[in-house]
């Protein structure tokens, strides 16, 4: 095992700020983008349904 404890893991050998600063922002963006994209798809579906019921 590389890490002796969880605090050892989070410290990343003194590079914690840099490693977690990188991973944190990457993770945030890679959760945000699919969420925003799914929302856009849902809205497009609602708009299309709306346009259709208006036309009918």
């Amino acid at each position, binding site marked *: 095992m590389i890490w002796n404890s969880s605090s050892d893991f989070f410290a990343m050998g003194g590079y914690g700020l840099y490693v977690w600063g990188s991973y944190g922002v*990457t993770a945030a963006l890679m959760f945000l983008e699919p969420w925003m994209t799914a929302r856009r798809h849902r809205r497009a579906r609602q708009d299309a349904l709306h346009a259709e019921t208006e036309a009918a």
Partner: protein
Amino acid sequence: MALSIRLFTFAAPSRFYWLSGLLAPWLWAAAVVLSVIGLYIGFFVAPTDATQGDAYRIIFIHVPAAWMSMVLYLVMAGWAGVGWAFKARLASMVARAIAPTGAMFTFIALWTGAFWGKPTWGAWWVWDARLTSELILLFLYLGYIALVEAIDDVRRADNAGALLALVGAVNVPIIYFSVKWWNTLHQGASISMTSAPTMAKTMLLAMLLMTFAFWAYAFAVVFVRTRAIILEREQHAEWVAKLLNRGAHA
């Protein structure tokens, strides 16, 4: 004849909408599973680097994100060009759907690069060929998005965007070869690896798994965004009405 019909079947937005909807959940699942395995190997199997300590672990997202930023740009420019040359509406929609994801991966490459540069070079940013050309890539993505959103006429917007994307594609080989063509602080990935081959193997494995995870992610998110764009543009089409009716009654 039959083959050519089959090849272009999925060029129809309605077919693509159906197929991408079928594939998207599997791609999301693949992205999650590959990320979990890749991060596990990257943080718990791959050893601490002999020269860079644990700061090197940024490589597992930095390099895949940088690869994706370049590949996605070429794919975007390619589909934008196909859409322009052959009046293929789906190709133009896919190009537009790729741009935000490409921009995001470019930003991640720059951001993680800054967080890696600070402890290893002592600077968040240097105006070096690799970093500057990657920054230009971000501006190309943002310029493409701004351009296609600014023009109201959809076809004209697609064509103007294609021109910008294709001209900007010249930047991608510049990024890729910048470390060879100019003296640069930016090291090649393999140089920083520890000399022991078994160590390098686990590091490489984690990086490749993360690369496949990012690929699956990119396909999934681009598919979903393309589906949204298809509905936005074709909301009055007969097949959309049929699809929505089926959904409403099911």
